[in-house]
C-alpha cells in the first residue's frame, strides 16, 4: 500500500513490463516470498486500470495471507474473486500448474473471463478449465492442451480431478496434459476439503456382467410388511430382514433356504432392494430426472453427476423407480479430493466459514485459518432459533413472518433441508398466494437467474442448502432501507458451518440483514441423533396434538430450558461423526495413494521404456505367471497343465507332447524350465511377425492394458475394502493397520493376476500386418 503512489504513477507499458522482470528474477533464483510485495502492488494497480476496481486493504490482507498454506476466512460478498487475483498472479509467474478452484463451472468460466483480462494485460496466460455445460469427458469440446499449458487455470475441483485421473489412463505421453502441480487456491475451501473430502472421484467403466435379478428382487420386497418381515433401526438409516421375512421370501421363491451358497446372488439382490426401498428416500437422497437416477450431495443439495452407488445399489434404485437399468460399472480410477490437493506443494484457500473447523484443517492439510476483518463492520442481526415440536407447527410459524416481510417488500430467502421439503414449502406458499422462486437440485440450471432475482424488492426464494454458496445475491437499492435480506432457515444442517454459510447470505458488505432459524423435533438430525427422551416427547406430543387439532391458533415454540441445547447437541454429534469418518478416510486413503502412486509412475515409465528394460520386465512377468500356476496346481493332471498352456501360452500346442513327456509331470523341477522355454519360443514367434519398433509399441500396449485392467479391479477392491475392514475394528485391532495389511495382500493377488493377463496377451494376441500401410491390427485374446 505504501507503494501505491509509485505504481499509480507508472505507465501502462512499465507496469506490463514488471511481469517479465519478475519472471527473470524468479529464474535467477529469487524466492517467491521476496517478490510478493512488488508483485501484489503491480496487480492491485492493474486491477484498477483494467477492471476499474482497486482492492481494499482487507482484500490485500487476505491476499497476503493466502500466499501459501493459509486459509483466509472472509465473509461472503467481501470480494474474494478480486482478492484472488493477487496470489494467482504471483504464482502464475512461475509458469503452468497454478489453479484456482471454484465450486461450479459457471463461476469458473465467468471469473476466468472477467479476471482473465487483468492477467492477460499483465502478460500471463489464463484459461477456463471446466466446460460450460458442466460435463466432463472427452466429448465436451474442451481443448485440454490449451487449457493446461496456461499459467493460470480457473477450473472446478471435479474437472481437475477427473482430468487427472483420465491423464493416468492414457496410453501415450501425447495424451497427457496436466503439468506438474504448483499451487492451488481453493474457493469455498471448507466445502472442498471437508464436506466433499470423503467422497472419492471415481471414473467408472469396465461394466460387469449385468444381472437380471434387480426387478425380481424389487417386486418381492414390496410384498413385505414392516416389523413382521423386516425392521428399521431407530435412526432409520439401516434395515434388515427378520427370520420371518427370510423364510417368507424363501417360500415365495420356492427354494429351501435363501442363505446357502447357490442362493447367494438372489439374497444379495434382496438385501439391496430392501435397503433402497426403506432407507433411501426419493428427493432426499436421490432425484429422478430424464429417466435417470441422480445422487444428491447432502451438504449442498446439488445433483452429483456421474456418481453412482457401488456394488449394484444404484441399479437397485433404478429398479425401484422403474427406470431403465444402467450397466453396473467398476471404479476404474479413483482419487479423493483430500489426496488430490495434498499433491500440491503450495495450497491456500478462502471461504466465509472456516474457524469452526480450523483444527481439522490444520491437522489434515497443514492449513492455518486466518480470519480477515470485514471491510465495513457487519450489522447483520442473527435472531435466536425457535424450536417446534412438529414440522407442521414449524412451517405454520414461519408464515406470518414471511407474509409480513413480503408486505413490506423486504426480500426473503427460505432455506429447506431437502428437495422434498423445498417442494412442500413451495406448495404451502402457493396456498397462501405468495409468489416465489424455487431453487433445488431439479432447477439447478436456472440457479444464476434465480439468485440474481433473490435480492429484488418483494422477492421470495425457497431453496435447499444450494443457496448457501455460489453467486452473490445483489440487493436492490431500496432493500437496505427495509432491513436488508431476510434469511429464514427451516432446518439445521449437518454442521454449524453449513448453517453459517447460509447466514452469510444476508448482511454482506456492511448492509443490514437478518437471519433466523426455525427447527422442529421431526427434523432429520433430530431423528437421527437426538437423545431418547426427545423421541419419547415427540411421539407423545403428536398424539396429543392430533387430539386437539385446531387450525387457527399459532403454534408456540418450545421454550423449556431442556430444549434449548437439544438441537445444537444433535448437530455436534453429527459433526463429530463426520469428522471421525473423514479422519478414517484420510488414513485409508494414504494406503490407496501409495499404491496408486506406484502404479501411475510405473505406467509413466513403461510408456517410454526402451526395448531392453521392457524385455527384462516381461521376463519377470512370465516367471511370475508360471510360478503362480505351479504353486496352485503342482501335481495335477495332464489336462490341467495342457489347459494352462493352451489358454495362456500357445493356442496351437499339441497335448501329445505332454503325454509323450509324461515323466515331466512327476519331476516338478523340470516343469518350470519347460514352461518357460515354451513361453520364450512363443514370444520369439510373436516378435518375428513385426518390425522392431512396432513390436516395442505392441509390448508397451500389452503391458499397459494388462496393468490397467488389473488396477481397475484393485481400485474397486480397495474401495470396498474400506467397509470390510471397518468391521474388523474390534479388540485392539487398528482399522488402518488392518486396511494396510489387507490392501497389501490384495496388491499381491492383483500382481499375480496382472502377470497372467500380460503373459496371455503378449503370447496369444493375433497380429495382422497390413502390407500396404504397414499398420498392425491386434486382436486380443
Amino acid at each position, binding site marked *: 500500500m505504501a507503494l501505491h503512489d509509485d505504481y499509480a504513477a507508472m505507465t501502462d507499458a512499465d507496469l506490463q513490463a514488471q511481469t517479465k522482470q519478475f519472471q527473470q528474477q524468479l529464474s535467477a533464483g529469487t524466492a517467491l516470498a521476496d517478490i510478493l510485495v512488488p508483485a501484489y502492488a503491480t496487480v492491485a494497480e492493474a486491477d484498477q486500470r483494467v477492471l476499474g476496481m482497486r482492492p481494499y486493504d482487507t482484500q490485500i490482507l487476505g491476499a497476503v495471507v493466502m500466499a501459501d498454506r493459509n486459509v483466509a476466512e472472509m465473509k461472503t460478498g467481501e470480494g474474494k474473486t478480486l482478492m484472488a487475483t493477487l496470489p494467482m498472479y504471483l504464482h502464475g509467474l512461475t509458469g503452468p500448474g497454478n489453479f484456482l478452484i471454484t465450486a461450479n463451472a459457471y463461476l469458473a468460466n465467468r471469473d476466468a473471463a472477467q479476471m482473465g483480462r487483468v492477467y492477460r494485460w499483465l502478460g500471463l496466460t489464463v484459461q477456463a478449465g471446466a466446460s460450460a455445460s458442466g460435463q466432463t469427458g472427452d466429448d465436451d469440446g474442451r481443448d485440454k492442451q490449451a487449457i493446461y499449458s496456461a499459467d493460470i487455470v480457473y477450473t472446478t475441483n471435479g474437472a481437475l480431478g477427473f482430468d487427472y485421473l483420465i491423464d493416468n489412463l492414457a496410453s501415450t505421453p501425447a495424451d497427457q496434459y496436466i503439468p506438474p502441480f504448483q499451487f492451488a487456491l481453493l474457493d469455498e475451501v471448507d466445502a472442498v476439503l471437508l464436506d466433499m473430502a470423503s467422497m472419492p472421484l471415481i471414473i467408472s467403466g469396465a461394466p460387469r456382467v449385468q444381472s437380471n435379478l434387480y426387478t425380481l428382487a424389487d417386486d418381492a420386497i414390496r410384498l413385505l410388511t414392516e416389523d413382521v418381515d423386516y425392521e428399521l433401526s431407530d435412526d432409520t438409516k439401516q434395515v434388515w430382514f427378520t427370520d420371518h421375512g427370510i423364510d417368507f421370501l424363501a417360500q415365495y421363491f420356492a427354494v429351501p433356504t435363501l442363505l446357502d451358497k447357490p442362493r447367494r446372488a438372489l439374497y444379495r439382490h434382496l438385501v*439391496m432392494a430392501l435397503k433402497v426401498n426403506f432407507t433411501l428416500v426419493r428427493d432426499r437422497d436421490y432425484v429422478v430426472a430424464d429417466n435417470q437416477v441422480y445422487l444428491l450431495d447432502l451438504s449442498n443439495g446439488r445433483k452429483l453427476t456421474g456418481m453412482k452407488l457401488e456394488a449394484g445399489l444404484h441399479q437397485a434404485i433404478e429398479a425401484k423407480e422403474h427406470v431403465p437399468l444402467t450397466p453396473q460399472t467398476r471404479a476404474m480410477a479413483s482419487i479423493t479430493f483430500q489426496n488430490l490437493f495434498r499433491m500440491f506443494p503450495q495450497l491456500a484457500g478462502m471461504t466465509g466459514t472456516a474457524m469452526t473447523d480450523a483444527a481439522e484443517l490444520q491437522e489434515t492439510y497443514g492449513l492455518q485459518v486466518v480470519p480477515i476483518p470485514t471491510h465495513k463492520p457487519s450489522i447483520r442481526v442473527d435472531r435466536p432459533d425457535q424450536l417446534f415440536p412438529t414440522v407442521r407447527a414449524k412451517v405454520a410459524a414461519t408464515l406470518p413472518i414471511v407474509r409480513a416481510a413480503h408486505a413490506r417488500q423486504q426480500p426473503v430467502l427460505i432455506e429447506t433441508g431437502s428437495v422434498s421439503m423445498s417442494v412442500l414449502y413451495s406448495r404451502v406458499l402457493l396456498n397462501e398466494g405468495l409468489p416465489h422462486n424455487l431453487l433445488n437440485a431439479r432447477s439447478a440450471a436456472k440457479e444464476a437467474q434465480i439468485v440474481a432475482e433473490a435480492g429484488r424488492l418483494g422477492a421470495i426464494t425457497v431453496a435447499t442448502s444450494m443457496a448457501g454458496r455460489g453467486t452473490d445475491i445483489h440487493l436492490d437499492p431500496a432493500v437496505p432501507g427495509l432491513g436488508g435480506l431476510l434469511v429464514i432457515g427451516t432446518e439445521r444442517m449437518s454442521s454449524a458451518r453449513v448453517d453459517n454459510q447460509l447466514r452469510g447470505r444476508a448482511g454482506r458488505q456492511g448492509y443490514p440483514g437478518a437471519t433466523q432459524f426455525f427447527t422442529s423435533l421431526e427434523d432429520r438430525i433430530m431423528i437421527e441423533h437426538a437423545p431418547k427422551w426427545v423421541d419419547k416427547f415427540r411421539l407423545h406430543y403428536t398424539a396429543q396434538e392430533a387430539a386437539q387439532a385446531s387450525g387457527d391458533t399459532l403454534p408456540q415454540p418450545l421454550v423449556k430450558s431442556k430444549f434449548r441445547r437439544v438441537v445444537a447437541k444433535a448437530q455436534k454429534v453429527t459433526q463429530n461423526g463426520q469428522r471421525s469418518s473423514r479422519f478414517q478416510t484420510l488414513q485409508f486413503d494414504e494406503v490407496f495413494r501409495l499404491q496408486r502412486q*506406484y502404479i501411475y509412475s510405473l505406467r509413466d515409465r513403461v510408456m517410454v521404456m526402451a526395448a531392453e528394460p521392457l524385455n527384462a520386465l516381461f521376463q519377470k512377468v512370465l516367471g511370475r505367471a508360471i510360478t503362480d500356476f505351479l504353486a496352485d496346481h503342482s501335481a495335477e493332471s495332464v489336462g490341467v497343465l495342457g489347459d494352462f498352456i493352451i489358454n495362456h501360452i500357445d493356442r496351437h500346442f499339441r497335448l501329445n507332447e505332454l503325454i509323450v513327456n509324461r515323466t515331466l509331470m512327476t519331476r516338478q523341477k523340470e516343469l518350470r524350465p519347460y514352461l518357460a522355454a515354451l513361453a520364450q519360443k512363443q514370444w520369439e514367434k510373436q516378435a518375428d511377425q513385426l518390425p522392431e519398433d512396432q513390436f516395442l509399441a505392441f509390448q508397451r500396449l500389452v503391458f499397459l492394458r494388462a*496393468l490397467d485392467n488389473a488396477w481397475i479391479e484393485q481400485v*474397486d*477392491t480397495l474401495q470396498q*475394502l474400506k467397509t470390510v475392514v471397518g468391521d*474388523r475394528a474390534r479388540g485392539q485391532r487398528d482399522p488402518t493397520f488392518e486396511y494396510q495389511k489387507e490392501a497389501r495382500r490384495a496388491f499381491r493377488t*492383483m500382481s499375480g493376476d496382472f502377470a497372467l493377463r500380460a503373459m496371455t496377451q503378449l503370447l496369444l494376441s493375433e497380429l495382422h500386418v497390413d502390407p500396404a500401410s504397414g499398420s498392425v491390427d491386434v486382436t486380443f485374446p
Partner: protein
Amino acid sequence: MSSNKRLFFRRLAYTLAVIAVYQLGQHVYLPMVNITAAQRALSGVPFFRLIAMTTGGQMGVPMLLSLGMRPYMTAMILVQAVQTVAADSYGQLSFKQQGYIARGITLALAVVQVVEMLVVMRQAFIPIWLPGTRIDLAVPIAFVLLLAGGMFTTWLADENTQHGIGGTVVLILPSLIASMPLLLQNGLGVSFPLTLVHLWWTAGISAAFFLIMAYLNQAELRIPLQRTLTDITYAPSYMPIRLLPAGAMPFMFSAAFFAFPAFFTATTGARAGWQKVLVTWTSFNTWQGITTYAVIVIGLGYAFGMMNLQPVQEAKGMRKAGDYILNVHPGDETEAFLMHQFWVMSFYGNTVLLLIGVLPLVIGLWIPGAANFSQFLGMIYILISIVDMINQQAGALWNKDRYDLFA
C-alpha cells in the same frame, strides 16, 4: 534413503529416547523418604513387586516413577469395558471428550495406587515442616510427586504411540526383560536353584515355548462372511476369532488378583480362622490355591475374549450391514453361532493358558522350584506379544511404500 526408512529410523530413535528418559526417571528417589525404611516396608508386600514387573513400575522402592504403567494399562482396559457396555453413547462423544474420560480414569487409578503406596510406607517419612508451623507437608508433597510421576509416564506412553514405535507397552520392556531371571529364581517365594543342569533345562524349555507361542499367538479361526452390499474381487471376507484373544493379559493381571488377599492379610496382620482359609486358598503351593489361580486365569481369558469379540454387538452389526454367514440366519441365530465358535475357541485357548500358567504350579508340588516357571513362562509370553506387535508396526512402517509388482 527412502523417506519411509528415514521415518522408521526417526521413530525408532524417538522410542529409544523415551525408554532412556523413563529408565532415568526410575532412579530418581523421593526426597522426603527414608529410603531403607521405605524399601523394607514396601518389599514386605510381594504383591507390589509382582505388579511392578509386569507394568514397568518399581513399587518396591519409593521413586518418582514408581507407579509405572499400571494406571494407564488398567485405564485402557476399563475404557474398553466402557466402550463395550455403553457403545452407543460412547461413540457419540467427540475425540476430545473420549480423551478426557480416559485421562480421568487414569488419574483416578493413579490416585488409588499412590494411596496404596503411602499407606504401606507411612512409617518411613521424614517430616518437612511448613516454615513457621507444625504442619507436616511430607505426605502431601509425596502424594503430588508420585501422582505427577504416574501421569508423566502416561504422557510418555502416549507420545511414544504418536511419534515412536510400539505404542504404549514399549515402556514395560526393559523392566520386563530385566526382571525375568529374578522371577525365575525367586518369583513366587520359592527358590529355583540355578545350577548348570537347571539352566540347560530352562534354555530348552524357553526356546521351545518361544517358538510354539509365537505361532499360537497369531492363530485364529476364520469364519467366511458373505457380504451383500459389496462385491470385491481380490479380498475374501472373513471374521477372525483368535485362539488367544486376550493375548498375555490374563498373566499380567492374574497375579494381582491372586496376591491381593495375601497382601490384605499381611497388612492387617491378624490370624483369624477365616484368614487362614483365605491364605490356603490363595497360595501358590497348595492345590486349593492352584485351583483358585486356574479359575482366575480362565475367567480372565473368557472376559478378555468376550470384550474382543462381543458377539451380540457383532451379530447386530452384521445384520445391519447386510452381512451373513452361509446357512445361518442373521440376528439371533448368528449370535448363537458366534457364541458357539467363541466357546470352542476359548476352550482351546484357555487350555493353552492353563498349560502355561497352571501346569508348572502343579509340577511344582513335586519338583521344587518348578512353580516359578508359571510366572516365567507367562513373562515370556508377554514379551512375545509385545515384540510381535512392535514387529508388525515396524514392518508396516518399513514397508509402507514398498510395492513391487514383480516381487
